[in-house]
C-alpha cells in the first residue's frame, strides 16, 4: 500500500503560507480567504481519504501497520540523524483528520469573522503556517522532527496570539505563551539529548519497538536518583508536552493566549496545538509504559488528574467567556492525560489509551465548536465578559443551538459525543486507579456546572441593553458551527477501539452502563445546579461564592500562579540574575579593562612630566647623568 500521497496534506498549507505570506500585499482579501479555505479543504479531503484508505486496508493480520516515508534532512553522527517524513499509523491518521477538519472549519469561519480586518491575508498565511506545522508535528517520524515542528507550532502560535500586535496585552500574551512553552521545550530538548545519547536513535519506531526488550535494556542503563536515565529523559520530554498542553505548572500562558482572534483560539488553543502534549505521550506510549515499570506514565496520570481538577475549579469562577473555555480546555486535556496515564498496553487493558485518543477527537470537535460559538457571540456583542451578555438565544438561534449541543457534549450528556469518550476514560480510571477515578467524576460534575453556567449566562438570563441589537452571524460562520455540532454528536458513535489502540490491534469496547450512569447523573446534577443558579438572574450564586470567601478569591485568582511566576521571573531572574550580570559586566569586567587603560594613562601622565620642555630640567638631568657616569667610571678605574 502506498500512502506517500499523504505528504501533500502538510505541503498544501505550506505552499499556501508561502504564497499568502510572500505576496500578502498583492493578494486581495477576497481571494486569500477562498484560497486558504480551498487549500485546507483539499487537505481535509485528502486526510479523510487517507483515513478511509488506512483504516480499511491498513491492517496486516489484524494489526495496523505503520507506513513511513522519509528523507534524511541533517546528519549529526553515524547513528543520529534527523529525517523529515511522514509516518502513517492510527494516531497520526486520526490527528490528520482532526487537524485538517478543524483547520478547514476555522478557515471557513474566519472568512466571516475576520472580515474587513486589515491583516486579512496575513491572518490566513499564519493559519496556513500553523496548519502546516501542526500536520508536520503529527506526522513526524522521529523525535527531532517532532521537536522541529513543535517549535514551529509554538512560533505560529506566537504570531497568531500576537495577531493584534498593536494591543499591548496581545503582545504580552504572545510573549508569555512563547517563553513559557519555550521553557518547557527546554525539557523536551534535554530529554531528546538524553534519550538519543543512550539509545542512539531519534526514531519513533525504534524507540517504541514492540519487542519491549530493547526498551527494557535501556531502562537498565545509567541511573540517577533511583530512576533510569531513560525515565528521566521521558519525564523531561513530557515536560515539553506539559508546556504545550498547558498542564500544571505550565498552564499560565493558556488563559492569556485568549487575546488572539477567536478562530485562532478555536484552532490552536482548543483543538490542535494544546493536545500536542497528549499526542506526544501517545506517540511514545510503549516507552512510557515499559520503562521502569511505567513510572513516567504515573507522572503523566497525576499531572493530568491534578490539572483537570484545578482547571475545572478555576473555570467556575471566571467571568471572561474565552477564559472559561480556556480553563475548560485545560481540564479536558488533563482528562486525556490521565487516561493515558492509567492505560495499560495490550488489548482491552489499553482502554485508557484508546479513550484518550477518542476524547481528543471528540473534544477537538466540541471545543472548537464552543470557541467558534463564543466567537460568534463576541462578534455580536463586542465583549468577552458574561456580564455584557444575556438572552442571546432570541437573537442568535443557530449559535444558540450549536452551543447547547457542544455544552451537552462536553458535560457528558448521554447520547452526545463527549458522553462516550468520557465514559471510556472513567472506565479506564476506575479499573486502574480509584483516586484518579473519583477526582475525574468530580471534574465531570464541575465541567457540567461551569459549562452550563456559561451557557445560561449567555443565552438566558437578563436581556441586556445592547448598543447594537445582536444578530445572527453570517453563513460563512454558521456553516462551520453546524458541521461541528453534527460532529459533536456523531463523533461519539465512531467505533474508536476498532481503529486506535495502544498495541495497534483492534478490540471491542463496550459501554460500561453503571459507570456511565454515575458519570452522566453527576453531569446532570451539575447542569441542574447551574440551571437553578443562572437560569434566572438570582443572588444565589453570589451568596454561594461569598460563603466560600477566601477560597473563592484564591481560586478566582487562578491560585496565584501568575503572581508566583512573575515574582520568579521579574524579581529573581530579571531583577537579581540579569541585573547583577549586567552590573558585573559593566563594573567588574569592563571596569577592569578600562582600569588597565586608566593605569596606563596615569603612568604616562606621570612620565610625561619629565618632558617638561624646560631647558634647565633637561640640563640638570644631563649633568646628573654625567656625574653618575663619571662616578661609575672612576670607581671602575680605581678598582
Amino acid at each position, binding site marked *: 500500500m502506498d500512502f506517500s500521497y499523504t505528504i501533500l496534506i502538510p505541503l498544501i498549507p505550506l505552499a499556501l503560507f508561502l504564497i499568502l505570506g510572500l505576496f500578502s500585499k498583492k493578494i486581495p482579501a477576497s481571494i486569500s480567504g477562498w484560497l486558504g479555505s480551498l487549500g485546507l479543504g483539499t487537505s481535509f479531503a485528502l486526510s479523510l481519504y487517507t483515513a478511509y484508505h488506512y483504516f480499511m486496508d491498513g491492517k496486516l493480520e489484524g494489526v495496523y501497520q505503520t507506513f513511513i516515508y522519509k528523507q534524511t534532512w541533517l546528519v549529526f553522527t553515524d547513528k543520529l540523524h534527523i529525517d523529515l517524513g511522514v509516518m502513517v499509523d492510527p494516531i497520526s491518521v486520526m490527528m490528520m483528520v482532526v487537524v485538517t477538519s478543524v483547520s478547514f472549519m476555522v478557515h471557513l469561519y474566519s472568512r466571516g469573522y475576520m472580515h474587513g480586518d486589515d491583516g486579512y491575508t496575513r491572518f490566513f498565511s499564519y493559519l496556513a503556517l500553523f496548519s502546516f506545522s501542526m500536520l508536520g508535528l503529527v506526522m513526524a517520524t522521529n523525535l527531532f522532527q517532532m521537536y522541529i515542528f513543535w517549535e514551529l507550532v509554538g512560533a505560529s502560535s506566537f504570531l497568531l496570539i500576537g495577531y493584534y500586535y498593536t494591543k499591548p496585552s496581545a503582545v504580552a500574551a504572545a510573549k508569555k505563551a512563547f517563553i513559557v512553552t519555550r521553557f518547557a521545550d527546554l525539557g523536551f530538548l534535554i530529554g531528546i539529548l538524553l534519550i538519543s545519547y543512550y539509545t542512539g536513535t531519534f526514531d519513533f519506531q525504534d524507540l517504541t519497538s514492540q519487542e519491549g526488550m530493547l526498551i527494557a535494556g535501556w531502562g537498565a542503563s545509567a541511573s540517577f536518583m533511583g530512576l533510569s536515565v531513560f525515565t528521566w529523559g521521558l519525564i523531561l520530554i513530557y515536560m515539553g508536552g506539559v508546556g504545550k498542553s498547558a498542564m500544571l505548572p505550565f498552564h499560565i500562558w493558556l488563559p492569556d493566549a485568549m487575546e488572539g482572534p477567536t478562530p485562532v483560539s478555536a484552532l490552536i488553543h482548543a483543538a490542535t496545538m494544546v493536545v500536542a502534549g497528549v499526542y506526544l505521550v501517545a506517540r511514545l506510549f510503549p516507552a512510557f509504559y515499559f520503562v521502569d515499570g511505567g513510572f513516567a506514565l504515573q507522572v503523566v496520570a497525576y499531572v493530568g488528574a491534578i490539572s483537570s481538577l484545578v482547571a475545572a475549579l478555576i473555570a467556575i469562577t471566571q467571568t471572561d467567556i474565552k477564559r472559561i473555555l480556556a480553563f475548560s480546555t485545560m481540564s479536558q486535556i488533563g482528562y486525556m492525560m490521565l487516561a493515558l496515564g492509567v492505560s495499560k498496553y495490550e488489548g482491552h487493558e489499553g482502554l485508557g489509551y484508546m479513550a484518550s485518543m477518542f476524547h481528543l477527537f471528540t473534544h477537538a470537535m466540541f471545543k472548537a465548536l464552543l470557541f467558534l460559538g463564543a466567537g460568534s457571540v463576541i462578534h455580536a456583542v463586542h465583549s468577552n465578559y458574561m456580564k455584557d451578555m444575556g438572552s442571546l438565544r432570541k437573537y442568535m438561534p443557530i449559535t444558540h443551538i450549536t452551543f447547547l449541543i457542544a455544552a451537552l457534549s462536553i458535560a457528558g450528556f448521554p447520547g452526545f459525543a463527549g458522553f462516550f469518550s468520557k465514559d471510556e476514560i472513567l472506565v479506564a480510571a476506575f479499573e486502574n486507579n480509584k483516586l484518579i477515578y473519583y477526582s475525574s467524576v468530580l471534574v465531570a460534575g464541575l465541567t457540567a456546572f461551569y459549562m452550563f453556567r456559561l451557557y445560561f449566562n449567555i443565552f438566558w438570563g437578563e436581556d441586556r441593553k445592547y448598543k447594537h441589537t445582536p444578530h445572527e452571524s453570517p453563513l460563512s460562520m454558521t456553516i462551520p458551527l453546524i458541521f461541528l455540532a453534527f460532529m459533536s454528536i456523531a463523533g461519539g458513535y465512531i467505533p474508536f477501539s476498532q481503529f486506535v489502540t495502544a498495541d495497534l490491534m483492534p478490540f471491542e469496547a463496550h459501554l460500561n452502563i453503571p459507570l456511565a450512569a454515575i458519570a452522566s447523573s453527576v453531569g446532570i446534577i451539575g447542569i441542574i445546579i447551574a440551571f437553578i443558579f443562572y437560569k434566572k438572574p438570582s443572588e444565589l450564586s453570589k451568596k454561594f461564592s461569598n460563603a466560600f470567601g477566601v477560597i473563592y478569591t484564591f481560586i478566582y485568582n487562578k491560585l496565584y500562579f501568575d503572581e508566583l511566576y512573575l515574582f520568579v521571573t521579574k524579581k529573581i531572574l530579571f531583577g537579581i540574575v540579569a541585573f547583577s550580570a549586567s552590573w558585573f559586566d559593566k563594573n567588574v569586567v569592563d571596569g577592569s579593562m578600562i582600569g588597565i587603560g586608566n593605569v596606563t594613562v596615569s603612568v604616562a601622565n606621570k612620565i610625561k612630566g619629565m618632558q*617638561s*620642555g*624646560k*631647558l634647565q630640567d633637561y640640563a640638570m638631568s644631563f649633568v646628573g647623568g654625567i656625574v653618575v657616569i663619571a662616578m661609575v667610571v672612576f670607581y671602575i678605574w680605581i678598582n
Partner: protein
Amino acid sequence: MIAGISIYDILTLTSILFFIGVYGFFTRENLITVLMSVELILNASAVNFVLINTYLYPDLLQGAVFSIFIIALAAAETALAIAIIINLYKLIYSVEVKDTETMKY
C-alpha cells in the same frame, strides 16, 4: 707659572667657577642670566686651557690659541643668543625660562 701656586689650586678654582656657572644655569629664571652663567662656564674652561698650557707645556702655545678661539666663539654665541632672546621677547613678551617650553612632550 705663578709662584707658590700649584696647578691643583688653579684647577680647583676653575672647577669651582665652572660649577658656579652650572648652578646659575640651573637656577636662573631669566634667559639673559642663564646666558651669563654660560659665560662663566666658558671662562672657566678658557682659564683651564691657558693655565694647563703654562704649567705643563710652557714652550707651546696651543692653550692660548684655544682660549682665543673660545673667546671668539663666546662672543659669537652671545651675540646670536641675545638676538634670539630679543626676538623671543618680541614674540611672547617674556624671556622667562618657564615660558619657553616648546620642547614639551
